[in-house]
């Protein structure tokens, strides 16, 4: 049942005679641009974002430095990239994730002319995101030896349906990951938290498949050893499970 907002109508119920309405229905932005171009005889400046265009069109738009293309790229992939950064890095404040997300898309947009295969737009963004996340991890670890440096840590904000056991495991999980090398942490979280396949991980990390496998195996071994000694995580990787069914 649709929410309020009018009576039902067939999808193709727009009259062929009413061309402007049909155009508006299909693509309001393009219709605006066409209308403006007709009235002024000049190519108008695009001021609104097309809602759906192909990846190829987005890349062409980015190369031509059109604002709508940057908006469309962000609209389409920001959620996926934010999730990837957040899951890879773990307990980051939203402002830090915001910074990284900004950096990923800024880099992607300004270097769009280097992207040859627009079919791989998501993979390309993931590659930039992985490198950005890796740099962030390295920066954080480099700072950590400074005893007097206390990074601001805000309390985690969760929605209510996360159990205390899961929150505790979450904190322990990412604390423990700090103790394994950044390159291995990256492969490990991409595989187990983000759920990426190894070939895509290798591609995103810009390494061969065998290197990715080797890093993952090392990370698994280190993580399992450390987790087995951790009072919170031992239950997860030992017998039985804490996973709520």
């Amino acid at each position: 049942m649709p929410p309020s907002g009018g009576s039902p109508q067939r999808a193709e119920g727009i009259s062929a005679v009413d061309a402007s309405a049909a155009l508006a229905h299909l693509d309001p932005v393009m219709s605006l641009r066409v209308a403006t171009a007709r009235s002024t005889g000049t190519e108008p400046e695009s001021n609104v974002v097309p809602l759906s265009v192909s990846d190829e069109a987005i890349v062409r738009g980015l190369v031509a430095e059109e604002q709508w293309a940057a908006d469309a790229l962000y609209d389409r992939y920001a959620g996926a990239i934010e999730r990837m950064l957040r899951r890879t890095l773990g307990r980051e404040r939203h402002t830090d994730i915001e910074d990284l997300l900004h950096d990923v898309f800024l880099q992607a947009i300004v270097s769009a002319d280097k992207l040859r295969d627009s079919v791989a737009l998501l993979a390309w963004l993931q590659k930039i995101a992985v490198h950005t996340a890796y740099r962030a991890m390295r920066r954080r670890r480099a700072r950590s030896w400074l005893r007097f440096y206390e990074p601001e840590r805000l309390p985690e904000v969760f929605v209510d349906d996360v159990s205390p056991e899961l929150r505790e495991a979450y904190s322990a999980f990412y604390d423990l990951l700090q103790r394994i090398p950044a390159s291995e942490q990256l492969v490990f979280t991409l595989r187990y938290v983000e759920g990426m396949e190894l070939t895509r991980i290798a591609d995103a990390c810009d390494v061969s498949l065998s290197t990715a496998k080797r890093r993952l195996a090392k990370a698994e071994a280190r993580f399992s050893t450390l987790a087995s000694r951790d009072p919170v995580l031992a239950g997860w990787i030992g017998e039985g499970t804490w996973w709520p069914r």
Partner: protein
Amino acid sequence: MVATMNRTKLDELGAAMAQVSDARADAPRAVHGARQRLRESLAEKRARRTAPRAARWVVPAAVVGLCAVGGAGVLGAAWWLAEPKPLTAHVESRSLALSGDWISTAAETKQLRFSDGTTLSLHPETRLQLRETSPRGASVVLARGRALANVEHTGKAEWRFTAGPFQVRVTGTEFDLAWDPDTGVFELALHQGEVLLEGPQVEGTRAIRKGDYVKIEVEPRQTAGAEGATRRADTETDPAHLADGTHDDLEDPLQDEAHDGADTAPADLADEPGDDTASAGADARRPAPARWQDLLESGQRSEALRAVDRVGPARAIEQASARELWTLANAARLGGRPELARSALQVLRSKHGQRGQTAFVLGKVAADQLRARSEAITWFETYLTEAPRGPFAEQALGRLVELQAGTPSGRRAAEQYLERHPNGAYAPFARSSLR
């Protein structure tokens, strides 16, 4: 080597961690915040590129020059380190001219970051002005609303906050400050440190310490001096403007002293509505205001939205054609006016019978801007019912996977998504939500 059994456990643990990570309430804020900053960064880059470039010989010449003054530079650096640096501030990634800048929020929040480490987090419907900055701090006028201040404790910090008739002096602390000129209610909550408070009903200067909460109600009409200007302005200003978070210059309690800087604030930061409350005689001399439709077509989105406010959103929507409603909905969506976008889209559906795409955009507005999860789910489902093979079907289904993650409906949506779009943008997430 890790046993296969252990890998299964790791898969299980990883899936649980993904679920917890996705449950973090601040994820949409990061996406929204980064979008604003990205736009500003790109605009800045474009502006920089259009600036004239230095000739090629300038760089080597500059290197030689720098070497020559290297020794002096070392001495200069020592002096520079010892000397306090001027304060600078950013809203997201945009620099602020500190003298007289007004910063307003409507439905959104904003964070000001200062070079000394101080941050000011503005709640929605808040308006403040930065005045009299020095290397050690600034004078801030909270004209309306609520702000969380985290003043860096440097030992030399000197910050002063004015909220109506109240003065708060700060050397390093964290506190919430609120002022409502309509009701005359002042609130101060100290989270860290100590501040000095002065004002009506406060005897002399009173120290407010960590954990203290102060709420003082003053008679709006009896607030002294410049505060009266606030009340006058409020009664003279169109209430519709106030409701939308845009206010007239007269509302500022220190208006008479603020002419120099207030008018120069960037439009999208200050959101100044211009001369709406100027005298009738001045109005008669002014040219007729541009139509919002014309402003939109010429790419002046902010101006167009202000013009819609002047006409009245309900009236503007009622009189608009289908095409104009589409452009208005998009402009409102991108201009941070989701309620207006929603109204325009709903009229497109109810009056003009436009199905499919309107449902998708309503879903986007609900999910990304209004944070109305269940409403967004309903609209994306509506889109898929109305246009199952439409151009946004993949995105709509992906958004349903995302919005319903961790629920049986989410699992069904994820399975459907993977079946139809195995390589889609949401495929990794759909897979992880099924594990």
